[in-house]
């Protein structure tokens, strides 16, 4: 029996080792995140069958809940932790060749801390612990955004820091409020007693927590840091931020709203909020000329879509939402990775500077194309079954309102397709002036991209590979009684 | 009997067509206070042209003229000329509508190879004019076909023989009037003589024709005249029970057409199309609406 605690402990320990290794060899330091992610991936996948049967509840320090700090490893947690590990692994492989200059050792340390923070958020069963891991995640990402050290990066980082800090403060106030109300920090314990107190303070706490987490989750009015941060960070970090960090934030929001507060009455509001985020994200991306900003806005849109799907709160839609999370992680991370080297070669972030990339970097461009197809939701790639599930579940609801809303979602997809395919045309079909030599990304980077491509295609063709996990994850999120029962015993 | 008509009707069309050509020249001369040529002048002309050594611009140049004349003869085979049409069961009026365009098309292809812009301009005018008169013409034909519920010319003639002829029955009288209004355009005479305008574009599509080519084109012109008039007689004036009556009816219609020819100056293409799309179209449209709503 492997304990989920290892998922946090081993990477954390290794993260602290990175500086030591870095003293021996700067190059070797880059392999530490690879090892840690690989370990996490193996462990998560080992644990998945187990948690599908019954969630694992691990108590740190041996105290039974609600007194000790609880780790709750349900299907959702395991799935996301596996996803984080996978993305972490691939991106760290990529970083081996991509991150060459600057304080690389510090980069790898921070990067590992980011992964640990993310894993912690998805595994924890304790509100304060959530806050702590969340801070680890956020603070390491503030630093990483500024990694390149140019003016734009630092400015973006500071903006991110200010907003993130504000979010964290609000989150902390909300948690404090909860503690004041219930005298406990254990999620299950709070959840079990949520109905026992006056609704207004609970709502205020919820609002604070949602807004606090929502900053990281890129919900519409709170996401202003995102385009700057994602476009200024190094592409490997953008990939992780877009693929992992904001999804973890969204997960935290959903966990709080679904499980802790059980607030089914606000879900309709979240449906609209998700739709608004989707439309605004896609429309803003449509008007972009900067490729990384475009991808960043597209991430906002995708977050909106996931939130829309999750907030419908039927088994099918939550399955779809989780599926979309997987698909978005794989596709968007792939896109950022591919764009990283394309931008590196062309020396500019303008979309027009990517002309002729299809000839100069054929494999990278191919990977980019697959990522786009998947993100837009074309068969036979992973984005297709996820979008299919969302639309199917929304239409199965038989409500006119949802049918209209799903029409808007599809419209947003069209806009998304339009701007992404414009980039594909630029990459492949625009005739560039000077013929430059063909020079693709380095093999390690290509390998990492093609790992994603393989996952995208395989899951796209055989979505049933992961639907079981997703469905049990959906039921875990939707049935809070089970959650409370399994934690509190 | 039917085999006989296969030979007879093209010959009759040829004779009547050439007669009309001569008659038209004579007719015009009399109206212009002239003596005019003898009635058989077209025959002399054709004989003369036939024995002149002309030039050929290529295989298509020859083939187009032949195709044009042959298709005109085939159209004649669809016409009941006071009897049964030899090709009555091969597509009816719809096939006639299509075959009627093969004549100009053959000339157009043939003239195209000659690389003479006068030819091209003439064809362009011809096609535009055709679009002009086809609007009312199609309305007329559709009104007839809808009214009698058939696409066969023979049956339309037969149905008219049972009751009144179409031009004398209520909703179709509009179609008849419209047909008379577009008849000069279909015959290609003034005021719609823009296609073979001798003075501006050197007789247009025929600009490169000399010798036998011109002879064939002249015959084709005669046949076109014959078809336009006989279509009116068949579709709107109840056809005829024997060729003589048919011929007499055609003569009357012919006289009308050439009276217009003599009395009016020429229009420009746009003016012609504008006219054709105004009054004849309006009247034909009224007829079509009445047929579609009232019916038989």
């Amino acid at each position, binding site marked *: 029996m492997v304990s989920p605690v290892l998922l946090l402990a081993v990477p954390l320990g290794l993260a602290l080792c990175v500086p030591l290794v870095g003293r021996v060899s700067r190059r070797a330091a880059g392999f530490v995140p690879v090892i840690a992610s690989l370990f996490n991936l193996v462990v998560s996948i080992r644990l998945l069958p187990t948690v599908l049967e019954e969630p694992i509840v691990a108590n740190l320090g041996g105290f039974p809940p609600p007194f000790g700090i609880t780790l709750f490893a349900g299907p959702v947690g395991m799935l996301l932790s596996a996803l984080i590990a996978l993305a972490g692994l691939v991106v760290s492989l990529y970083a081996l060749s991509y991150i060459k200059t600057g304080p690389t050792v510090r980069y790898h340390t921070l990067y590992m801390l980011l992964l640990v923070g993310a894993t912690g958020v998805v595994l924890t069963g304790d509100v304060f612990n959530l806050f702590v891991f969340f801070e680890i995640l956020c603070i390491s990402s503030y630093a990483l955004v500024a990694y390149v050290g140019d003016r734009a990066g630092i400015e973006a980082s500071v903006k991110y820091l200010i907003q993130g800090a504000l979010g964290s403060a609000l989150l902390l106030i909300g948690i404090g409020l909860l503690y004041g109300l219930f005298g406990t920090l254990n999620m299950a314990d709070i959840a079990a007693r949520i109905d026992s107190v006056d609704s207004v303070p609970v709502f205020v706490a919820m609002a604070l927590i949602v807004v606090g987490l929502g900053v990281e989750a890129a919900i519409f009015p709170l996401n202003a840091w995102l385009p700057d941060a994602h476009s200024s960070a190094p592409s490997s970090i953008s990939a992780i931020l877009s693929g992992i960090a904001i999804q973890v934030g969204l997960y935290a929001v959903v966990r709080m709203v679904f499980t802790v507060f059980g607030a089914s009455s606000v879900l309709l509001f979240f449906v609209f909020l998700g739709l608004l985020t989707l439309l605004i994200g896609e429309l803003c991306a449509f008007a972009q000329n900067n490729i990384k900003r475009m991808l960043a806005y597209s991430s906002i849109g995708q977050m909106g879509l996931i939130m829309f799907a999750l907030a419908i709160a039927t088994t099918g839609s939550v399955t779809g939402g989780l599926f979309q999370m997987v698909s978005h992680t794989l596709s968007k991370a792939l896109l950022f990775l591919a764009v990283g080297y394309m931008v590196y070669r062309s020396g500019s972030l303008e979309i027009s500077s990517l002309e002729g990339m299809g000839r100069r970097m054929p494999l990278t461009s191919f990977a980019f194309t697959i990522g786009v197809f998947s993100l837009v939701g074309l068969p036979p790639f992973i984005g297709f079954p996820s979008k299919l599930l969302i639309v199917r579940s929304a239409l199965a609801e038989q409500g006119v309102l949802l049918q209209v809303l799903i029409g808007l979602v599809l419209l947003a997809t069209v806009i998304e397709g339009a701007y992404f395919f414009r980039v594909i045309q630029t990459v492949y079909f625009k005739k560039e002036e000077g013929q430059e030599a063909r020079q693709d990304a380095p093999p390690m980077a290509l390998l990492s991209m093609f790992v994603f491509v393989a996952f995208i295609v395989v899951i796209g063709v055989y979505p049933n590979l992961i639907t079981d996990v997703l469905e049990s994850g959906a039921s875990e999120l939707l049935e809070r009684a089970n959650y409370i029962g399994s934690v509190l015993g | 009997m039917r085999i006989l008509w296969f030979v007879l009707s093209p010959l009759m069309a040829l004779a009547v067509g050439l007669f009309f050509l001569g008659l038209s*020249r004579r007719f015009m*001369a009399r109206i*212009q*206070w*002239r*003596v*005019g*040529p*003898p009635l058989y*002048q077209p025959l*002399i*002309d054709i*004989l*003369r*042209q036939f*024995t*002149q*050594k*002309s*030039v050929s611009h290529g295989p298509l140049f020859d083939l187009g003229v032949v195709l044009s004349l042959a298709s005109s003869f085939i159209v004649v085979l669809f016409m009941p000329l006071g009897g049964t049409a030899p090709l009555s069961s091969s597509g009816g009026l719809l096939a006639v509508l299509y075959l009627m365009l093969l004549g100009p098309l053959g000339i157009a292809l043939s003239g195209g190879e000659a690389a003479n812009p*006068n030819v091209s301009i003439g064809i362009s005018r011809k096609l535009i004019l055709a679009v002009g008169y086809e609007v009312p013409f199609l309305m007329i034909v559709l009104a007839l076909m809808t009214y009698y519920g058939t696409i066969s010319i023979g049956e339309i003639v037969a149905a008219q023989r049972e009751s009144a002829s179409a031009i004398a029955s209520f909703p179709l009288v509009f179609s008849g009037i419209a047909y008379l209004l577009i008849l000069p355009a279909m015959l290609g005479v003034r005021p719609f003589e823009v296609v*073979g305008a*001798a*003075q501006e574009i*050197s*007789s247009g599509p*025929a*600009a*490169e*024709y*000399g*010798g036998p080519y*011109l002879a064939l084109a002249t015959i084709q012109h005669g046949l076109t005249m014959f078809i336009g008039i006989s279509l009116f007689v068949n579709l709107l004036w109840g056809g005829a029970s024997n060729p003589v009556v048919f011929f007499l009816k055609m003569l009357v219609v012919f006289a009308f057409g050439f009276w217009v020819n003599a009395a009016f100056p020429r229009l420009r293409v746009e003016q012609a199309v504008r006219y054709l799309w105004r009054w004849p179209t309006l009247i034909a449209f009224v007829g079509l609406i009445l047929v579609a709503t009232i019916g038989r």
Partner: protein
Amino acid sequence: MDRNQLMKWIKAPTKMAHKYSLNAVYFCTGCGVIEVPPTITSRWDAERFGVVPTATARQANLFLITGYVSVKTLRAIIRTYEQMPEPKYTVGFGSCTINGGMYWDSYNTINQLDKYIPIDGYIAGCMPRPEAIFVAVTHLWTLIDKDMADGYKRYRKNYAAYRANQEMILGEMEWPPIFQTEVATAITEREG
């Protein structure tokens, strides 16, 4: 129609057809063309003799050269003449075509047309009246009857000489010779 006519029609229909269907090319070379409109319209009605103007050289068999011929016009006249299908007849109309007429000493008009293209007949006068055209036509009929209107054959036969004369005045021509000299001679001999 007298019997003589009928016999002619039966014996030589082609020749008769050429006689009675003289289509003149509608080409106004000089001032004499002012006499053509009255000729073909109601006043004199040339159509009763089968004489009608045609639009292009291809359709015609009668070339009426009406008046003075400047050097530039000569080029067009030769071109038009060569494009007419055979058999074809040319009639010089007015004194200018015979000897230059009032332009006999002009720096720019040629004064003897038959040096450049064969002429089947001339109508003298400045201007000849429309009646003169009819006289010319009936005279041409006689010539055709007697196979004496053979300008086109002479042109073929002596093409080299004609071409040389043309090039003396016009310089190098814009189109190649229409007959190979030997071929032309052979055809002429075969046709008699």
